[in-house]
């Protein structure tokens, strides 16, 4: 692997030679060489912190490398800053968009690429150009729309338009599907294929192996700042790529025994929620989660899952009207006039959707974070810091949090390790019901495997788990039963072995469940593939 000469015969669009970059003591990139043939989609995979984003930021001139050379079209591109990268024909779509939220689309597009000191000529030229690009690449966006009113998918199109307006031939996308719905992601892939077919070169950074397999021509794998392999995608497999990324064999399927559901732990009936603006977010949810089972809630984000988790966690949106009944282990659970503390006290653990905003205090050390929400349990106002520290250290050992330094601030851990701190805290509090929201969002493959195993263990120990995830593969891999949410309603419940991604996808899009009776016919084997839990 990684032999020069195994590349496709197309001339290189871009070539990196011996790129190195250190941030203080951390070697983010070490002697990286890479050839990307023109007119291809080139995937770059690696775990979080493997150095992918750093490498691409160097390519875009956002950082200066300590050593190495960048060649664009066989010539030294002399990239010293973003301006020179743009001149060399490189465009970048960052993971966190670099748009001005209260500017219009056209203002965002011309920013930094204006034709002269006055705006009017630039605006009218950009409008014309946007119409042309929209037609050519299926990049329809209203040029006069204010960016903050657009959906995330459309904002991403604006970023792509920005690059194309600057006549980029090489487009770099950093984790572009992390924020997209499945339909938006499909549309993006069609756009990227269109770009390739018109001779553009696309570099796609991702940690989702399915995307790599789906649209890339070649794939490079990074691990701990080094480029470990570059292979033609059709000659590799997700298993092989995962092994290259992590450096060891990775189980992409979750091994789990048949669930042994016990008594109902959480029973919801007729749960409704109307938010402050008068919008009905939940429209009568009926759900039961039993001891020893995982109920997965599938759905495109924004269909009420967040509201459901927040209500159960004891912190509904301010001003929301909540009605309906809930029972926890047979006892009535009040739906309003309560708080997160009471919920925890009742035995509900909570792995929130946004670990940085709700799960952790980013400036607190790891050990301080391990007692959040449990800090009153000792029953005294004084904290026994030594005991908490040593317990935190043991917990970090058990959950393989790296680095194992309880004094390190939460913000200095990688996404996967931050999530492990939260998961450890919640699982080890021995909840009877665990609420889990997007447990592996932005988490690397090794940590995903680990977190999934721990959730199964907790299930086998008899806890009830309510899992909300927008990753359909995750839902299918972990759940014992699957409920699909759409527009504040449960569209239907399915057993993972008796459904398909296609059927769930229809329910997620709001198709009436009666339209597709689950028992009618076996789904074809290809569609069932993800049901086995390929990440």
């Amino acid at each position: 692997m990684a032999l020069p000469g195994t590349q496709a015969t197309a001339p290189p669009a871009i070539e990196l030679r011996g790129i190195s970059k250190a941030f203080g003591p951390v070697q983010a990139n070490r002697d990286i060489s890479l050839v990307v043939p023109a007119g291809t989609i080139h995937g770059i995979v690696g775990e979080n912190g493997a150095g992918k984003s750093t490498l691409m930021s160097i390519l875009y001139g956002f950082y200066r490398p300590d050593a190495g050379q960048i060649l664009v079209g066989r010539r030294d591109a002399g990239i010293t800053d973003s301006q020179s990268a743009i001149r060399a024909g490189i465009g970048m779509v960052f993971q966190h968009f670099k748009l001005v939220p209260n500017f219009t689309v056209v203002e965002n597009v011309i920013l930094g690429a204006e034709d002269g000191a006055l705006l009017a000529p630039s605006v009218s030229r950009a409008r014309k150009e946007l119409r042309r690009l929209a037609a050519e690449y299926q990049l329809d966006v209203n040029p006069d729309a204010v960016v903050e009113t657009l959906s995330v998918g459309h904002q991403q199109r604006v970023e792509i338009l920005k690059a194309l307006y600057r006549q980029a031939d090489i487009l770099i996308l950093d984790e572009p599907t992390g924020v997209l719905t499945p339909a938006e992601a499909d549309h993006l892939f069609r756009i990227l294929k269109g770009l390739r077919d018109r001779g553009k070169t696309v570099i796609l950074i991702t940690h989702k192996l399915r995307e790599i397999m789906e649209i890339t021509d070649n794939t490079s794998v990074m691990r701990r700042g080094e480029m470990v392999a570059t292979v033609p995608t059709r000659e590799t497999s997700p298993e092989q790529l995962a092994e290259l990324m992590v450096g060891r064999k990775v189980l992409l399927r979750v091994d789990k025994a048949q669930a042994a559901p016990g008594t109902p732990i959480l029973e919801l009936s007729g749960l409704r929620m109307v938010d402050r603006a008068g919008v009905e977010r939940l429209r009568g949810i009926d759900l039961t989660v039993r001891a020893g089972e995982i109920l997965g809630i599938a759905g495109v984000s924004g269909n009420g899952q967040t509201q459901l988790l927040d209500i159960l966690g004891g912190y509904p949106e301010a001003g929301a009207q909540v009605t309906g009944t809930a029972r926890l282990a047979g006892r009535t659970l009040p739906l309003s006039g309560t708080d997160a503390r009471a919920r925890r006290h009742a035995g509900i653990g909570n792995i929130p959707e946004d670990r940085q905003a709700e799960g952790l205090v980013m400036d607190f050390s790891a050990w301080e974070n391990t007692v959040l929400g449990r800090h009153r349990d000792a029953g005294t106002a004084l904290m026994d810091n030594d005991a908490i520290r040593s317990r935190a250290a043991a917990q970090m050992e058990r959950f393989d949090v790296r680095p194992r330094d309880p004094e390190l601030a939460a913000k200095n851990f990688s996404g996967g390790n931050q999530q492990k701190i939260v998961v450890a805290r919640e699982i080890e509090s021995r909840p009877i019901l665990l609420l889990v929201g997007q447990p592996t969002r932005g988490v690397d493959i090794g940590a995903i495997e680990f977190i999934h195993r721990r959730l199964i263990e907790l299930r086998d120990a008899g806890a009830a788990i309510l899992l909300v995830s927008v990753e359909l593969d995750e839902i299918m891999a972990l759940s014992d039963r699957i409920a699909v949410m759409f527009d504040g309603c449960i569209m239907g419940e399915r057993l993972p072995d008796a459904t398909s991604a296609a059927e769930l996808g229809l329910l997620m899009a709001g198709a009436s469940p009666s339209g597709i009776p689950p028992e009618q016919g076996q789904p074809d084997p290809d569609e069932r593939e993800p049901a086995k839990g390929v990440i």
Partner: protein
Amino acid sequence: MDYATILQILDSAVRLMTPLLLACLAGLYSERAGVFDIGLEGKMLMAAFSAAATAAVTGSVWLGLVAGILAAVGMSLIHGLAAITFRGNQLISGVAINFLASGLTVLLGQSWFALGGRTPSLEGAARFGSITLPGAETLRSIPVLGPFYAEVVSGHTALVYVAALLVPGTWWLLYRTRFGLRLRAVGENPASVDTAGVSVPRLRWAAVAICGMLTGLAGAYLATGLSAGFVKEMTAGRGYIALAALIFANWRPWRALGATFLFGLMEAVANRYPELDMGFVTIPSMVMSALPYLLTVIILAGFIGRATPPRAGGEPYVKER
């Protein structure tokens, strides 16, 4: 209240709003670029002192104006160095500038002129004279509009007209030019400017320098246009009032004109009627002169409308990893 009195109050309001308007626009440039500036007060004070001292010594109000601008720009450079180059806390730097100006003006004033911190009274060419606009006297006979033109529009010093012209000028610069687009962008999301290959610090430095020039105008007007010389703490919180007006104006130039006029009007009314007799009750003078400050508190507490400040305001820009 007759028409002549209304005209007098309006005329006075225009004079009193001018330093507020200049300072408010100064703050607008700085804050639209993402640099919060609580030091408007100190810069105005420094400029007022420099302008009055220079005018007193040289006898030229124009040299005074130049000195006032230079002094305020100098203070701006300190703020820029702290806020942009060294990525320090913008509030603390602004407060430091206010303290520095408050102490330095009195200290220098006393040591140079020995008048207890004042500068000598200015007269003649050392003050801004009023300009009578063409036709003010001939048009006076036209009912209603004639006297309005002669009393309220005409007869101000040059800086009043400069301030008035700066409002459409600022609007045009912000919304019709490349510089304005980039300036607004850098205050909302500096990363968008940086990734577009435009220097964030350079834009912010430009904004802070413009802010310095405008506070220089404001201070010079205060000491050599509105008054005849510098008096200790003569800005009397106008820098803060300008900030309140800026929030009230939602960081927009035309609304800044309206907001500062409101403050100017209040001050003018308080000056005209120290004790306002409402018939059944007499409002004491303390309340009347506290009016602009009360309004400031009300605005800053967010009672009036919802202000949306520039999103990146107050945050030093650091490239994220």
